[in-house]
């Protein structure tokens, strides 16, 4: 807001500088002979709802000379003051045709755009012509106060979704814990992981596990950690070699922890050393260059790509194909799925990546969470069909339930 103000005053300055120079052309007469426009009317100011405070919204009926009438209004300038008598300060402006201004304050007290909460404020709006001298002020509106809110009412649908989904999850996890049999359909990519580890052992070649460019704050990376822990456990049991080159140092740290614990669980803590999981560099293509080199030099029996991938997906997968490795990929990056589908032997598409950890572990609790996800999907289908019917019959009340406000 502050920048726009600065920029705007610069523009105004040049406008007025222009006035001084163009006397001979009669531009001054155009400007000086502008009649004052009619002011705006019905100014109302109210607190912005669902926010952290320090913000107010102004609304008004535009001047009759905005785009009609004399057609002289160029912009509206907004003024604020803490009392109706003290001088008003310009806090912003909007071009013609607008009838609303969000006066969003800055949180730092020192800033000139700071708007105090729980304090009486007064507002005025000027209709300004191309000549900044010629303007019409509105009546002062006030007092009005800004507040901070504890709960965001526009986000109720999200809260409902959290509660419903959390409830489903808790229910099915409890059911699973009690020992109920839960069916899951087979996934080709998952059984391939088991086969691949066996194959690597037979061939005496390593397994390459790649997180892609995901950082530790991405859920896909967290899901990938779980998959790595299963893979590492089996690798430790078979005494096969595991290579995990990393792009992000935090991911590397967590992955070291994961592999170390898996080796411990498998009963081979001595077989682990920190150099199995190592850092390369945090640069997309430098990482790719190095991993490509590893693929052609170490000739891994299997490459497992799980996590977040970007443009490097195809470079990695094609190089892996050249090296003759079996390749299993899984990503939630929709744009890269085509490349993995084409270049890899098995690909886990989107949600399958998240399901993989449950599949690999075969623990009832994890399978319970898959069941919860399926119920949520069934709910989506039912809601969509209801929504479509509602939308086609013009029942907007139903679709509005899902409107989330920012």
């Amino acid at each position, binding site marked *: 807001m502050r920048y726009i103000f600065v920029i705007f005053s610069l523009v105004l300055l040049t406008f007025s500088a222009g006035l001084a120079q163009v006397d001979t052309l009669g531009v001054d007469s155009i400007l000086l002979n502008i009649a004052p426009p009619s002011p705006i009317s019905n100014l109302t100011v109210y607190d912005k709802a669902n*926010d*952290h*405070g320090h913000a107010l919204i102004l609304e008004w009926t535009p001047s009759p000379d905005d785009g009609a009438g004399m057609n002289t209004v160029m912009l509206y300038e907004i003024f604020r003051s803490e009392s109706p008598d003290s001088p008003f300060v310009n806090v912003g402006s909007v071009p013609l045709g607008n009838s609303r201004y969000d006066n969003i304050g800055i*949180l730092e007290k020192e800033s000139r755009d700071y708007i105090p909460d729980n304090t009486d404020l007064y507002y005025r709006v000027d209709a300004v012509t191309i000549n900044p001298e010629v303007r019409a002020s509105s009546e002062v509106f006030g007092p009005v106060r800004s507040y*901070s*809110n*504890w709960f*965001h009412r526009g*986000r109720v649908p999200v*809260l409902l979704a959290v509660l419903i*989904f959390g409830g489903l*999850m808790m229910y099915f*996890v409890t059911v699973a814990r009690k020992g109920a049999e839960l069916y899951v359909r087979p996934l080709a990519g998952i059984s391939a992981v088991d086969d691949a580890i066996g194959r690597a052992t037979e061939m005496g070649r390593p397994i390459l596990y790649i997180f892609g460019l995901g950082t530790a*704050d991405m*859920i896909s990376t*967290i*899901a990938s*950690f*779980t998959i790595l*822990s*299963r893979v590492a*456990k089996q690798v430790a049991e078979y005494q096969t070699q595991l290579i995990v080159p990393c792009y992000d*140092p*935090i991911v590397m*740290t967590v992955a070291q*922890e*994961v*592999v170390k*614990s*898996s080796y411990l*669980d498998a009963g081979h803590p001595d077989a682990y050393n*920190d*150099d199995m999981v*190592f*850092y*390369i560099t*945090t*640069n997309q*293509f*430098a990482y790719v*260059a190095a991993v490509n080199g590893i693929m052609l*030099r170490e000739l891994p029996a299997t490459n497992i790509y799980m996590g977040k991938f970007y*443009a490097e997906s*195809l*470079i990695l997968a*094609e190089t892996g194909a050249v090296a003759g490795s079996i390749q299993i990929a899984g990503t*939630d990056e*929709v744009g890269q799925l085509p490349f993995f*589908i084409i270049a890899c032997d098995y690909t886990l*598409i*989107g*949600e399958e990546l*998240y*399901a993989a*950890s449950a599949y690999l572990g075969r*623990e009832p*609790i994890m399978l319970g*969470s898959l069941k919860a*996800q399926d119920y949520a*999907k069934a709910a989506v289908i039912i809601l969509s069909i209801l929504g479509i019917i509602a939308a086609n019959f013009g029942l907007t009340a139903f679709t509005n339930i899902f409107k989330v406000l920012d």
Partner: protein
Amino acid sequence: MKRQIPVFLVFIFGVFMVFQYFSPHEASEWVYKFLMDWIYIIGIFAMALGIWSLIHVSYDKIKHKRHDWGYSVVTLAALFIMTFFGITGFNENGDWGFYFMTQEGLTNPMFLNFFNYILVPIETTMFSLLAFFIASAAYRAFRARNVLASMLLVSALIVMLRFNPYFGDAFAFYMNKTAAWLLNVPNMAAKRAILIGIGLGMVGTALKVVLGIERGYMGKG
């Protein structure tokens, strides 16, 4: 103790972040901002671990004279030289010391040179390898082996032929329209289905992590 405290920390911070979304209050935003800053700062300490790992692995190779150890010397030399250029330079008075940027720009022009003439060319060339790999992948994988593979193949061919002018204007026109339809309509449906699935998978995983059901990230499966 070694495993309970981390799980407890995950729960506390996870629940706070969920709460934070529903509360726009100044206080809640303030804490949120602090937490985000913290993550960046911890990330910088992790950087030290990463660089340590890189140096350690390279040094190990050199020490034991493993295969291709000479290239590890290149890595280490590049790392040290670039770091030296990156943290030192001359300021506007011509004093040498720990400087990075002044108003005139980088204090050490060699940092920029290395960036422009080593980093950028290799980066763009690695990226351009994609042109070759996309060709070889298409040749290798686009075989009409079964129904699914044929669908993949046909829709790729239609889109690739969309601006072919040799078969007459009408052909080009309809190819263009069909390709645009494929990219707008079925694409949108598939993307949405995948995204809904991913959304559920992510939410499920995150919930399991926050509730401590999923502990794979700590090595406890």
